[in-house]
């Protein structure tokens, strides 16, 4: 069948393209150009494409499959980069990879795949899509260390029906690299991507300050009683749970950020709450009418917490208090299966 593969130029999506091609499908590689690489690297007039796009083209050429580069700069700027900065300015913790999956990979790219008459969209994500009695289910990857299910909770059921994740069943990254080497792909030894793709220097505070200068205005660091402990250089440099850059409050963590007063409130490290309200929920099951026990993850890399989920109300009651950062995702699991989730209010 005709399958569109989202090719980033990395080893994972390259292996996906290779495996599907070997399996006899008509593979169409598509790379989204998300930002002007020349501008990101600070080189005026440089070629607009980064090395990753050239790598994707080289892999497609090696495999002998069609490959296209799609200009997604506008959509990425609006839905991911601007949303990233806006999130900081609102005192929230952004999750740009979720926004990118939601709006670009499973939004615009999936639409393109449909327009091209493809029957599926495959990506290099480490998750599994299993067929259950009530339709396709989203599950954690076999390789727990690589699992990306947390980042894909916002995938809707109809998007999931169209999606394929061939790497979810791989035992390890080493196995993926071995496949790449076996197929002679020029990216077999390429380093894994790091951090946030559109912040090559790692200095996200610069981007936030440029897009939202208000988030770079100084303010007070206060304790729970409102006593001023120190000053800060902009709420865009802080997220809830952060222990760095606290000056005289070192040893504590950020517990609350108030964008209106630009106050950063700190508290002891064990601070937390039991009740979490969610917005923009996406449920991958028919919501049970009664609250339902399950496990939740409040950040990408942490052990899951037992909780009681009220699907209809979009609220979560944790068995033990934990720190929930507004803006982050709360993803609900039943064993390996992702039941959905929402953004923490």
């Amino acid at each position, binding site marked *: *069948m005709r399958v569109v593969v989202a090719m980033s130029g990395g080893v994972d999506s390259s292996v996906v393209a290779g495996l599907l091609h070997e*399996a006899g499908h008509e593979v*169409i590689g598509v790379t989204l150009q998300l930002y002007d690489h020349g501008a990101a690297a600070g080189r005026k007039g440089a070629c607009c*494409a980064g090395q990753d*796009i050239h790598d994707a083209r080289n892999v497609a050429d090696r495999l002998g499959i069609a490959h296209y*580069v*799609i200009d997604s700069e506008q959509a990425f700027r609006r839905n991911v980069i601007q949303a990233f900065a806006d999130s900081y300015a609102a005192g929230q913790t952004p999750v740009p990879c979720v926004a990118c999956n939601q709006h670009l990979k499973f939004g615009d790219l999936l639409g393109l795949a449909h327009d091209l008459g493809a029957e599926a969209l495959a990506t290099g994500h480490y998750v599994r899509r299993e067929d259950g009695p009530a339709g396709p289910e989203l599950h954690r990857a076999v390789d727990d260390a690589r699992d990306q299910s947390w980042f894909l909770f916002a995938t809707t059921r109809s998007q999931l029906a*169209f999606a394929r994740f061939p790497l979810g069943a791989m035992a390890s990254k080493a196995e993926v690299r071995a496949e790449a080497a076996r197929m002679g792909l020029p990216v077999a030894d390429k380093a894994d991507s790091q951090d946030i793709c559109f912040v090559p220097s790692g200095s996200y505070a610069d981007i936030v300050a440029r897009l939202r200068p208000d988030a770079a205005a100084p303010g007070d660091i206060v304790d729970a009683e409102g006593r001023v402990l120190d000053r800060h250089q902009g709420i865009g440099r802080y997220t809830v749970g952060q222990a760095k850059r606290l000056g005289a409050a070192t040893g504590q963590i950020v517990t609350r950020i108030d964008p209106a007063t630009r106050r950063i409130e700190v508290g002891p490290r064990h601070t937390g709450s039991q009740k979490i309200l969610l917005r923009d929920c996406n449920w991958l099951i028919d919501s049970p009418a009664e609250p339902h026990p399950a496990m939740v993850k409040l950040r990408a890399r942490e052990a899951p917490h037992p909780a009681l989920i009220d699907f209809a109300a979009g609220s979560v009651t944790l068995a033990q208090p934990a720190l929930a950062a507004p803006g982050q995702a709360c993803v609900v699991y039943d064993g390996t299966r992702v039941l959905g989730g929402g953004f923490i209010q």
Partner: protein
Amino acid sequence: MVLPATDPLYLDANASETLRPAARAAILAALDAANPASIHRLGRAARHILEKSRETIALHCHARPQDLVFTSGATEANALAIHALGANRPLLIGATEHDAIRAPAQAAGRAVTVPVTRSGVIDLAALERLLAAHQGALVCLMEANNETGVIHPIPAIATLCAAHQAILHVDAAQSAGRLRTDPLGAGAASLALSSHKLGGPKGAGALVLAPAIADRLTPLIIGGGQERGRRGGTPDLPAIAGFAAAIAVIGPEEAPRLQRLRDQIDDGARALGAEIIGQDAPRLPNTTCLAVRSLPAQTQVIALDLAGIAVSAGSACSSGKVARSPVLDAMGLDALADCAIRVSLPWNCPDDAPMRFLDAYQNSITRALHKADRSHIASAEPVV
């Protein structure tokens, strides 16, 4: 790659014209040539090829052979014209120019853009105002646009330029060989040509000059003083031989035939609801620019490619990314600019091309515009 059942149908001649057999033969014959600057008989034989080629191309441009400077292509010819003729002059460039004009003019730091009308033709009244405001300018305009095929009225423009002590450089990359016009005779100072846009090989081009200015040209590349000191470097003889052979074999019957096929495509596309960009202006016989509202050009180009039909859209950068067309932007097309593809017929376009194109075009439009309920795709078939 899974290839379509039939050979790809090439409708992207404005990106690169199909190589003409006469050009291929001339290239092969010149591959063993010596250096045309050498004294010995083999050098003389090479020089013979070079100068015969120069005569052939100059004749086609109604120019003297000694006024033709071979370059690596139209990009270099345009850059040389701006460098040599535009020094210390204001630069007036058309709003729909190719980057080969736009980029060097902007790099010079004194480019002024001349607007076009909604049909893509240069706005003569605006040009006259700008000429009056910028006396003694170098005006750089393409004779025919690469994306729409829209033709600027070079004789009228040349007359305006002369009235304001301006000189006119014409980028004839798309029009040479396709239009039987004479820009130099109309008063242009120089003409940029590209071999591969008229059926020769890539890697050759020319700047053809009016006699009065031909000898005082400051080179971009100094080197060994080749081309009478106007362009250093050993000329690419096989490419130049192919260039000349291509221009020599273009017959008068070619354009009317392509126009007939192009008009069939226009009629069929209109019937499918497409808009023809620049249809009210004179256009190249082989070119049409079709837009379907709310259907992104990149989707159309990819869908047609998968159906075995090669067309293009916008300006492709080296990443292969399809970017929004500045040409269509300049025509004030707004959102429609994102939805236009260019169909450009090569000299050997088969007679069934309109039928094959329209068939695939209809399929891709129908599929994308009638986004049916996608739930039918829910049947889960494992892929690996």
